């Protein structure tokens, strides 16, 4: 009925040959469309993952950076006023809303060497979009960057917990002598690519050397 040389047999043979040897244009187009959809989904998934990772990176860096900077600054304030020779070292030689100068006699020679780590300045600097800078003598280091104007706030409290407000300038010497606690607030912005994250932390430091005066 369907001999090898007959028309029906040729059709079948051609049909089988085509099916085994390749794809029709329709099959190729459909396959390409499906592959494109799968690849697009994969790329989108990757894009979301990267966005999440960037956000996490920025957020953790902001929180970690602010926490570290506050810990460093708080430690400086805690040990300010060290005076083993009792020569009358002043713990706070300047106290403003965005700048504090802390002094101590670390080597016990009876004097404060302003060019060494015996003088620590904590201050906000407007350079490079705002930074929290720590000076050790004449050396300076940014301990937190992308700190906007007003992002660093230093507050001073006496032994009774009453705030001593510097006002527009700095605290007068009489008020600086009453300071027993320094409170710090820091607002840090961190960027990872186009993603930005902000962290606002607080810290406090009791001036340890003034506890013995009680």
């Amino acid at each position, binding site marked *: 009925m369907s001999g090898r040389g007959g028309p029906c047999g040729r059709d079948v043979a051609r*049909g*089988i040959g085509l*099916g085994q040897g390749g794809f029709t244009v329709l099959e190729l187009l459909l396959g390409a469309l499906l592959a494109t959809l799968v690849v697009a989904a994969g790329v989108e998934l990757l894009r979301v993952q990267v966005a999440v990772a960037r956000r*996490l990176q920025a957020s953790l860096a902001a*929180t970690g950076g602010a926490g570290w900077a506050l810990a460093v600054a708080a430690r400086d304030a805690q040990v300010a006023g060290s005076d083993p020779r009792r020569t009358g070292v002043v713990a706070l030689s300047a106290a403003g809303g965005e700048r504090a100068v802390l002094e101590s006699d670390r080597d016990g020679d009876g004097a404060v060497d302003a060019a060494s780590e015996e003088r620590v300045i904590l201050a906000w600097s407007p350079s490079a979009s705002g930074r929290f800078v720590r000076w050790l003598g004449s050396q300076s280091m940014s301990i937190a960057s992308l700190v906007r104007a007003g992002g660093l706030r230093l507050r001073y409290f006496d032994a009774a*917990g009453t705030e001593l407000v510097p006002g527009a300038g700095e605290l007068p010497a009489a008020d600086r002598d009453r300071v*027993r606690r320094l409170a710090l607030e820091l607002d840090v912005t961190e960027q990872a690519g186009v993603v930005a994250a902000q962290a606002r*932390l*607080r810290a*406090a430091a009791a001036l340890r050397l003034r506890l013995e005066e009680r």
Partner: protein
Amino acid sequence: MSRRAIGRGRSEAGFTLLEALVAIGLVASAGVVATTAAVAMLRLERAAHAEAAGLAAASEKLEELVGALPADRRSGNDDTVLDGVPVTRVWRVLDDQPAQGLTRLEVTSRWDRPQLTLLTLVAAVPGRSTP
């Protein structure tokens, strides 16, 4: 016989339902794994952020107690918000601990999100809160 041959040809050129389901399952599994990983990372980030805020809040209160006059140190509690994290703080002032003439200060901060966490800081300072 020729119909069977054509049927076989079609079967070999396309995918079976099982093959398609397995392929979809693999793609879906990859999506689920990626999403789960992202959610877990976000949760960890939130936990780390809350811990930093809780630690800062406890440390702040401890320094406040250390800096206060001995007679002004009192046990108490309060609620504060630090970097968007609500933190409850409880502090205790214990005279003559860990030794005579010293005061033990304990500050515990607690936050509920993403999970309930307690953190306690302890310090000892000279003096007594009561004469």
